[in-house]
């Protein structure tokens, strides 16, 4: 019983983190058809910026409460600046290229971002645990969990809901769906596709940075964290169906719960649990769970 509760809460916590770390990736893929390896770079930038800013702030000895503002701000700054630089500086010259080639482009950008991060922050780890501690813990059936974990779960739900509402119930969202459906037609309709791409990319980058920034207080921010997140995020969005926000959420939940179950019931398999799940899901649903409907043109 206790184990079942633990699996549920741990799985949910892990899923929230996965969703926040991968939703930007699926958004960019859905709109721009770019499988963005540089996403890992944005995640790392967000984590570093947040850890660094929180570290600076806490040294002043002021109330920890403000750090909950600093974290999203750090993500916003990191995401917008780096997203704009990458999109305006590099990617826009490459639109229309082969999808596979774009993977290589974003990989090159990722390599550059890794070293940029290292040049800015060095290789020492950054710890900024204060926000994760300050809220204390609550017991769930005798198991203590940090309140911060539940905060992350709440943020994940909020981000998911916000994206859903924006995409499905606003004018901008509907225009965006048109862009996704047919780039040429939307140009003909007078939609500013370039602007949509820029904005989407920046939002995607910011979401990646937000994933990193929110995680920063729970971990030690070190070089290489960006590389770790990429494959995990890919797996999540492939399981859910590429380009689908709901799919990313479902994929994160599936991976989160199965990983938690493995850890509690059969720890040695944790190492490849995510890949087992991915292989199993794809074997049954070859295009992921929420594959986007695509018009057949015969």
């Amino acid at each position, binding site marked *: 019983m206790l184990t079942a509760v633990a699996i549920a809460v741990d799985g949910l916590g892990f899923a929230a983190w996965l969703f926040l770390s991968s939703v930007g990736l699926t958004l960019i893929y859905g709109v721009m058809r770019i499988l963005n390896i540089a996403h890992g770079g944005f995640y790392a930038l967000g984590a570093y910026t947040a850890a660094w800013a929180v570290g600076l702030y806490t040294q002043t000895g002021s109330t920890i409460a403000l750090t909950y503002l600093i974290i999203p701000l750090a993500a916003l700054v990191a995401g917008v600046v780096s997203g704009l630089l990458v999109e305006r500086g590099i990617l826009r010259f490459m639109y229309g290229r082969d999808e596979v080639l774009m993977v290589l482009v974003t990989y090159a950008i990722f390599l550059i971002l890794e070293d940029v991060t290292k040049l800015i922050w060095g290789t020492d780890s950054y710890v900024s645990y204060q926000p994760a501690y300050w809220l204390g813990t609550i017991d769930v059936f005798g198991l203590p969990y940090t309140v911060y974990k539940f905060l992350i779960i709440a943020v994940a739900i909020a981000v998911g809901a916000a994206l859903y509402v924006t995409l499905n119930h606003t004018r901008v969202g509907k225009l965006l769906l048109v862009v996704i459906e047919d780039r040429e037609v939307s140009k003909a309709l007078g939609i500013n596709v370039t602007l949509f791409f820029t904005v989407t990319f920046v939002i995607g980058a910011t979401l990646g940075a937000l994933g990193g920034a929110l995680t920063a207080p729970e971990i030690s921010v070190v070089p290489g964290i960006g590389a770790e997140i990429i494959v995990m995020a890919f797996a999540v969005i492939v399981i859910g169906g590429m380009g689908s926000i709901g799919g990313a959420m479902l994929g994160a939940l599936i991976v989160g719960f199965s990983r938690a179950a493995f850890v509690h019931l059969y720890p040695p398999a944790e190492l490849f649990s995510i890949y087992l799940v991915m292989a199993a899901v794809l074997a049954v649903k*070859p295009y992921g769970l929420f*594959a986007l409907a*695509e*018009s*057949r*043109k*015969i």
Partner: protein
Amino acid sequence: MTTILETKNLERTFGAVVAAKDINIRIDAGEVLGVIGSNGAGKTTFVNMVTGYLPPSSGEILYRGAPITGKPTREIMRLGICRSFQIPQLFPEMGVLDNMLIALTIAKQQKPVLFRPAIDRVVEDEAIALLTRFRIERYAHQEIQTLPQGVRKLVDIAMATVSDPALLFLDEPTSGVSADEKMDFMRVLIDALKSTDTAVLFIEHDMEIVEEFSPRCVAFYEGTILADGPTGDVLKDAKVREFVIGSEFHRKPDESVETATGKGAA
């Protein structure tokens, strides 16, 4: 005349939507048959079912008396049924001749063969001959992307004939061809096909073309067959005039057909 294709009570549903129902058609060897009907009437669904692209929900398809229901496309092709597409399905990054060469290579090859060069002079001669038959040999060295729509349609149809089919479905061969060229276009086409004694079923929205080229006509409406018989009779049929020909005036120029989940070969 021998019947080469016969369908019995073919039906196809997509969820709650009935795309085709009670489709009973016989096609004789060598005959030319026009199919009319507005969008969503089930014409392409019918072709998709017969060519194995969509398995029918129920019903039976007999080819030369033997059932072919539910067989994969490639097997049905091997038996001698081919089709062209409303939107030409070509190899867009290659030239016209290369398209034909590849098509011939594949059509001749039942299983992947290694180590033997695929293309030789014989295949090249054949490819040129095919292009000549459809009078597009002068485009042989052009890239597909640079071709006018009508030529693309012809390449698409030429490709469908590489294995000398006994029955050929043409899905809106004249769509994308300008109105004043349609007649000439169809004449080239039908002449080229008549020389091989292929039975041809073509889907067409232009009644003049149907009258001109097909002695027999089938009218589809909302997934069912409204009328089937000599073209003159069918076109005069009251129901056909009301539901099919009347609606042709409201036809949208750009149409896409079924929407299915997932990404297939398209």
